[in-house]
């Protein structure tokens, strides 16, 4: 494998050994019986970052308010105390420069983890992300590669002001060269952060801010990675597949339990969690088993990632389908302010309707 450092003589000496970097600490999370700690999703992110900063000196965290303040959501709390201001870096207010300088850092042999304070404010960095982060490997025929992470809180449901509630995953998923993951549990948050940092390619980690403090779970204390590219079946079921990710995973699971108890419908809930690459096998297997499917996401319906899931089902499992696949999504309108958010975001009622439509059709 060639690295940026291979191509940059001066960085060669200090460059980290790429082979050891991509090694994963794969543990069987289901069978794990080691020490755990109770963490929220945002603490899972923080824990993942802490372990990676400790493991590899080339890892640096940078962004607005990530240092002294510990991040506006506290995702980097105390990391600057622990690793110092040269590893956990407060930057001036400039998303394009945060991502652009991260590209440069990665080219030099560092492993930057950049934070966009909110996905709604990542737009100035779009050019750096799509023209360069996504393309450096292919443009240079593999000579220059970018092991870098860009974290962004995304999604609605926290009664935030304008521009603080967007779900723009589709635009990023559409870019060849970027990987896009989104954890929906504290355990996945920690493991996906670790996997993203160790990945040889640029990885966008979309963090559902509505779930940052929504619940806690016991998370393994030791370092581990959750593989990028693998969906997680959160609830096994026989009757219908419900595909979702991020914050919608919670209402999807709640609806699945309700439908089991009240309607005797056995819903399989698949948390895609890796939106790029998409876990095509898991999608196909689930639909081949259930013969019915619904997709739920917060982003607007048109050209959302849900459309990609439906197209994938068509390609992989069309002849298993007993009904059209339904989509429960945000509307093709901007996310409203707090008073109307409940009507915009896919919540229990609309998800239930969408699943029933797929089952009863």
């Amino acid at each position: 494998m060639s690295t940026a450092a291979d191509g940059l003589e001066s960085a060669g000496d200090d460059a980290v050994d790429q082979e050891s970097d991509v090694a994963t600490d794969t543990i069987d999370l289901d069978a794990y019986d080691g020490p755990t700690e109770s963490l929220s999703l945002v603490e899972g992110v923080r824990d993942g970052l802490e372990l990676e900063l400790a493991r590899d000196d080339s890892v640096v965290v940078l962004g607005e308010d990530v240092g002294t303040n510990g991040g506006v959501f506290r995702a980097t709390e105390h990391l600057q105390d622990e690793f110092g201001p040269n590893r956990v870096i407060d930057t001036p207010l400039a998303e394009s420069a945060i991502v652009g300088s991260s590209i440069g850092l990665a080219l030099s042999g560092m492993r930057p983890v950049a934070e966009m304070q909110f996905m709604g404010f990542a737009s100035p960095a779009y050019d750096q992300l799509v023209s360069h982060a996504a393309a450096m490997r292919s443009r240079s025929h593999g000579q220059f590669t970018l092991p870098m992470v860009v974290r962004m809180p995304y999604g609605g449901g926290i009664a935030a002001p304008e521009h603080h509630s967007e779900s723009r995953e589709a635009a990023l998923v559409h870019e060849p060269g970027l990987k896009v993951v989104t954890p929906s549990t504290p355990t996945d948050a920690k493991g996906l952060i670790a996997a993203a940092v160790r990945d040889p390619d640029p990885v966008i980690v979309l963090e559902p801010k509505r779930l940052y403090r929504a619940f806690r779970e016991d998370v393994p204390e030791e370092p581990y990675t959750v593989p990028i590219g693998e969906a997680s079946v959160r609830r096994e079921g026989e009757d219908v597949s419900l595909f979702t990710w991020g914050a919608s995973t919670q209402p999807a699971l709640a609806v699945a339990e309700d439908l089991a108890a009240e309607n005797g419908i056995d819903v399989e809930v698949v948390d895609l969690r890796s939106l790029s690459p998409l876990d095509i096998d898991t999608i196909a297997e689930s639909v081949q088993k259930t013969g019915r499917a619904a997709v739920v996401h917060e982003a607007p319906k048109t050209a959302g990632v849900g459309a990609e899931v439906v197209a994938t089902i068509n390609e992989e499992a069309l002849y298993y389908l007993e009904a059209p696949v339904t989509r429960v999504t945000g509307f093709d309108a901007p996310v409203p302010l707090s008073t109307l958010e409940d009507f915009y975001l896919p919540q229990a009622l609309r998800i239930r309707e969408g699943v029933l439509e797929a089952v009863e059709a």
Partner: protein
Amino acid sequence: MSTYDEIESTQSPEPTSPPEDAVQILDTDGSLLPGAKRPDLTDEELLEMYEELVLARRFDERATGLQRQGRISTYAPMRGQEGSQVATSFALDAADWLVPTYRDHAAKHAHGRSYESLLQHLAGYREGYAVPDDVNALPEYIPIGTQVPQAMGLAWGFTMQDQHDRAVLCHFGDGATSTGDFHEGLNFAAVYDVPSIFVCNNNQWAISMPFESQTATETIVEKADAYGVEGVRVDGTDPLAVYAVTRAAVQKAKHPAEGERRPTLIESCQYRLGAHSTADDPSAYRDEDDGEDWEDRDPVERLERYLYREEILDDDLADEIADRVEDCLATAIERAEATETDPGRMFEHVYEEPTDRLREQLADLDGLRERHGDEAFEEVGE
């Protein structure tokens, strides 16, 4: 000679913050600094400005209280910054346009917006962003720096349409000067020489980022040189100085002297006395006594002291104003909270004509609401 030389005063003997080179007119005790002269504002206008300041201060306090009670969502306080906000808007004519940020509540009100409408969007009703026809202001900008090129374009467009008696005043913070849009917008403004005033409200902080770490230059104002526009630095806690400087910039924007460029970059030196927003806890990143020296440069008290000295204001009048302010805010809050909205509004104004998809989505939502009632949407399912 610069437009500003004539309003430049001798400096107070021992200036604390803001720095010495900032234009000042009032001393902190409300007296005119030696050599400074009162801007061309009548007693009535000065009293209006004062009332606007008292209103701003009380709005800030009431809004912070409403947020704590869960009656509005995140609020960006402006304590210590009201003087500059009010004074910059007073320097505008009604035909001029205001391009404000999320923190510029008082600037918006002083240019014609109602506090009721500002409270509406804070309470989660987008209706509050509907600027009335007779107010020349854009809705607030939250994505930092993005308004700067737009303000330039607005001014540019007016000149293209031969509306030479309109200037555009654009607000932004110290943090915004790090964005590409700030540089690009100022460069355009200078290249096309459009009637524009760029006001950097340097409140020394961008959330947790202190000014010294935001930029390696000592001031914001020196950046003006890079674009070839005039820069002026003013004590942003001195309403009269801010008024004088901004008024001169507005006049220059519309009627420049031979060889003068229309745009001005004003660095208004202030201090963010409160938190960045109600969601922010400054104790995580700044000492409690940071900015203490700004406390006694309170813009509201400063103008008040001046008006008492000049015998424009007395206790009776001050009480009358205080009462009016309370009434005005009580009414604004009551009305904002009585706003009625409808989920169907989400689909309005996306385009001039809704798309078929939007109509379909609205019909689906209406069907669900009819069958299940609006309460059913509150069950988030978590």
